[in-house]
């Protein structure tokens, strides 16, 4: 475990402590870096689009990157607000490819369940999968054709549920290479 390099999980607003902690635990396991929960950005109103009633994820990422602590190598924000990028109706998350920051929204992943209650296993798996997926992008992984791979692009919740919680063989190797290069 690389102690000096940290991945920060930054909850935006009240998303439930267990969500942040679950993500931090899984992120650490997958990427072999320490992870901590720390609020870096608590207000994202600057990214709100009143016409769409959604938050523009790209703008949030820019702000997140600027505010990220010095010791953090990657930062993943988690929000319960619905996100969008201009060309799509919505996104479950967005990442800077090979960059520092990424974000996921749990709004659609928990499908209307109250966040205070411990969500059922399927929903929590969705959250973890999307978190790992977006962080994978920050380590320069592209979308994978393998439907079972965690890096597979998901258009719907069915796609999210169908894919496994693992990287495919190839993405595992690509990730290992990229992390090695990153750490040099």
């Amino acid at each position: 475990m690389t102690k000096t390099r940290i991945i920060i999980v930054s909850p935006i607003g009240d998303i439930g402590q267990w969500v942040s902690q679950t993500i931090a635990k899984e992120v650490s396991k997958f990427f072999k870096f320490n992870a901590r929960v720390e609020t870096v950005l608590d207000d994202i109103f600057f990214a709100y689009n009143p016409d769409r009633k959604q938050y523009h994820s790209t703008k949030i990422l820019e702000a997140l990157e600027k505010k990220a602590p010095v010791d953090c190598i990657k930062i993943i924000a988690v929000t319960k607000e619905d996100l969008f990028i201009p060309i799509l109706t919505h996104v479950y998350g967005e990442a800077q490819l090979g960059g520092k920051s990424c974000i996921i929204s749990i709004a659609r992943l928990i499908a209307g369940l109250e966040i205070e209650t411990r969500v059922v296993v399927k929903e929590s798996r969705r959250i973890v999968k999307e978190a790992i997926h977006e962080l994978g992008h920050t380590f320069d992984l592209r979308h994978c054709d393998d439907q079972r791979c965690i890096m597979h692009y998901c258009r719907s919740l069915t796609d999210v549920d169908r894919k496994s919680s693992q990287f495919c063989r190839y993405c595992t190797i690509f990730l290992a290479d990229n992390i090695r290069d990153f750490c040099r």
Partner: protein
Amino acid sequence: MKQTRILVVDDELIIRESLTGWLKRDGYHVQSVPSGEQAIDLLKTSSFDLLLLDIQMDGISGMDVLKHVKELYPDIDVIMITAFGSIPSAVQAMKFHAFDYLLKPFDPEELGVLIEKLIQHRAKIQENQFLKEDYQQRNRFESMIGQSRAMQEIFNLIEDIKDTETTVLITGETGTGKGLAAKAIHSNSRVSNGPFVSVNCGAIPKHIMESELFGHQKGAFTDAGETRKGRLELAGSGTLFLDEIGEISMRMQIDLLQVLEDKIFYRVGGTQPITTDFRVIAATNANLEKAIENRTFRKDLYYRLNVITFTMPPLRERKEDIPLLAKHFLIKTTQEINRGVERISRDAMDELMLYEWPGNVRELSNAIERAVVVCKTTTITPFDLPIVKELENKLKNKYFSLNDVEKHHIYQILTKNNWNISKSSIILGIDRSTLYNKIKLYDLKDDRDT
């Protein structure tokens, strides 16, 4: 070829003595034996070029000796001699590859002419063999043609690596003959008896690449109606040539690296491991080091391939090979398409030498092929070459003197009319003596003898 060694095999002493004496007088080395058995024994220790072999002998017959000789010493020619000739025995002798069949008594002159004919025949075979070996030696390796220093270095390198089974990476511009070099390495290697399996990594669609390389089991996917061996399996203990290796996907690079390292792979949908023992030769016109920087080629795969590397020189760096190559393509094309084009004019060869050949040898081959097709005479002229038109296009904005224009036009008319002065002068609208003067003035030459 008075050094020809002849063995006379006949059970009649008088035949042996007279033949031996006569042939010795003619300058041949001659020995004689009275039986087939002794002939066979002698052949074990002495070498001969020609047997004069009696058919009817006690013990082993001449026919049996003939069969024995042709089986064990196929280079020895045999003339059958007999007093009891028959069509069936003559046919049988020829069937067993006797050179000829003579009836005793025969005219010594006739025998002398026959032996002379045989010697010339053998000389021709040896000459052809020598020429072939010399051609191969001069021009080297499996259609790789070149006498230039650059190519000699390539040939020397291929010679150096022929006894190894190390992975080779061949780089070079497109059309420089990387594939031919790969074949040459294979043909000169210890695995030359094995297959040479080529994979064009740039041409095979990505979605079938895996199946193409690894094969598939029946039912592995929708269109897998039967089990199929992939190229890796087909390569066996031979050579796997991966052309355009730079085009291979990152995923396939991982798979390939694993196979190269572990020497094991599985067919798509298969569970049975298949071991491999092929030698890998890869080729690319891409800059792999740059591709590594751009993260489109894996460094570990590059190091695995880059054990021995050499670069095929572009044609512009070995222009001295152009005449040889051009003639080779001319012969090849005229044979393939049955055209009577026999030569390349001096001017045309000059144009070939001037051109830079961005497409290298392949472009030259295409240019000659096209020229053979469009050529209206037995000689390729500059006007038949597509490259000249390119040069002409480039020169369109340049200005020429009237003399240049006239010279060019007269030459064109003469060439098109096979240097028929009368016809050309009529077309040009000048008399014959004026045309002769113009030819002298511009130093125009009939290149049809080039």
